[in-house]
């Protein structure tokens, strides 16, 4: 079944220049492998569409049950150049939690 990522994870996001970083953290560490399988850099790039002009990189932190995404050229120039309300990407983590992932009942409850 499809569920929104927000059921399994929380997030915090910020900036480094024109790159937004989004940390996605499993509420329960046993769900971390589902995040690794479902929330791929390709899917994150597709989710944000035209908002992210550059590549999406993903790093794994199994010790924290967390993934770190770097979204390049994602903040309208970043820093002082950006014309966006959210020039630091503070809200992009909350946006990404709406992405839908495919999981089975067994995996959710396992």
């Amino acid at each position, binding site marked *: 079944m499809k569920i929104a990522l927000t059921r399994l994870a929380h997030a*915090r996001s910020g900036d480094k220049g024109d790159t937004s970083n989004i940390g996605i953290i499993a509420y329960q560490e046993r769900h971390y492998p589902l995040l690794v399988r479902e929330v791929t850099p390709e899917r994150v790039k597709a989710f944000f569409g035209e908002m992210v002009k550059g590549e999406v990189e993903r790093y794994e932190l199994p010790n924290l049950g967390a993934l770190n995404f770097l979204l390049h050229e994602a903040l309208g120039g970043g820093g002082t*150049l950006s*014309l966006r309300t959210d020039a630091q990407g503070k809200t992009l983590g909350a946006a990404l939690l*709406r992405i839908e992932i495919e999981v089975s009942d067994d995996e959710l409850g396992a």
Partner: protein
Amino acid sequence: MIRIANGQGFWGDWLEAPVRLVEQGPIDYLVLDYLAEVTMSILQKQKQHDANSGYARDFPPLIGRIAKLMKDRDVKVIANAGGVNPTACAREVRRLAPSLKVAVVLGDDVLGRIDEFLDKGYTMENLDTGEPLKTIRDRILSANAYIGAFPLAVALGTGADVVIAGRSTDTALTLAPMIHDFGWGEEDWDLLAAGTIAGHLIECGAQVTGGNCQVDWQSIPDLADIGYPIIEAEPDGSFSITKHPGTGGRVSRDVIKEQLLYELGDPASHITPDCVADFTTIQLRDAGPDRVRVCGIRGRARTPMLKLSVSYMYGWKAIGTLVYSAPQAVEKAQSADTIVRERLRQLGLAFEEIHTELFGVNACHGPVAVPCADPPEVQLRIGVRGRDREAVDRFTRELIPLVLSGPPTGTGYGEGRPPVREVVAYWPALIPREEIQTRVEVVE
């Protein structure tokens, strides 16, 4: 064990936080982080107008306010409040708190050495774009090397009550007292990485004690009286993170994880002047109410380069707004946007970017925002950025006329024309470590 607290996550953070940290319980060190990436350019301009300015103005009055408590409770302060003029900052601290010994760390400001570096063949490419620094040579406003914790530890070694640095890294402020008190060496990579990660955890103040926290945010107690973070550091590199008892907020593993990931790049290679810290080795354990134990951290040798923070004059920007009400507020705002863009086109004005947001509809999440049907009102927000000040200035005159000559219900223009703002941009680069010589001075 030593207690290191952070009372300021950025210049502009809650003024009461550092005072409460000293008042409400035991701490040994109070660290205060004042510098963002382009703060140095603002301070450099202030110094050009007044040789006694160029530092974080909020800092000396704060020290004046807590000086007596610092002495009574033996609390030392470490801050990168010095900006581009640590000595002037120290003199003002001495004026307001004459009982305190103050030391400054100098040598990070390399604005006067750029040509020397270029002559030596350092191209100082922009780490984001790869362009060489010479392309912006004439527009540079400030240039500082990020310095690490060891010069700050040397300053603590003078017996200073207050250590003032310029562009030290945020994490160095927290690592320095560990080096000073525990005698850690320059190649104790695991220990330096542990202290660096402790610094990363508290460098944004209350963002690690329940502020800006998504997990169950409505249940986080008493954010009005939130406690700022305290590291209880051990000589073996393990530490606990907590806050004063009775304060608001929350310290839990979930909260800590959010801050560990904040502004993180490659977690296995977090590069600072002091070491390369590996965030994938961090182990967290709940250790009681509002207390998390952190251990297991590994690090690797520091790199031969230091990061340079250069700021330069880039151009101009302006952001203007108008409000439209229901019905069809979205359609009205979109129509107004089309009209503004057409009028700018007819004027032949060129911009690097014109950016439109419908505030209340898509300002934060852009094309991935959840659609909402016919909102009661929408704020049209149009921004332009360009190299030509005149063009940006003309743009600021093109919004209010729409109240009479555009779609109906245009309002919310009471602030008048938006200001034209200077855009100072940030240029991150690298310089060999041996080019940067720091020194410590006690300011009498």
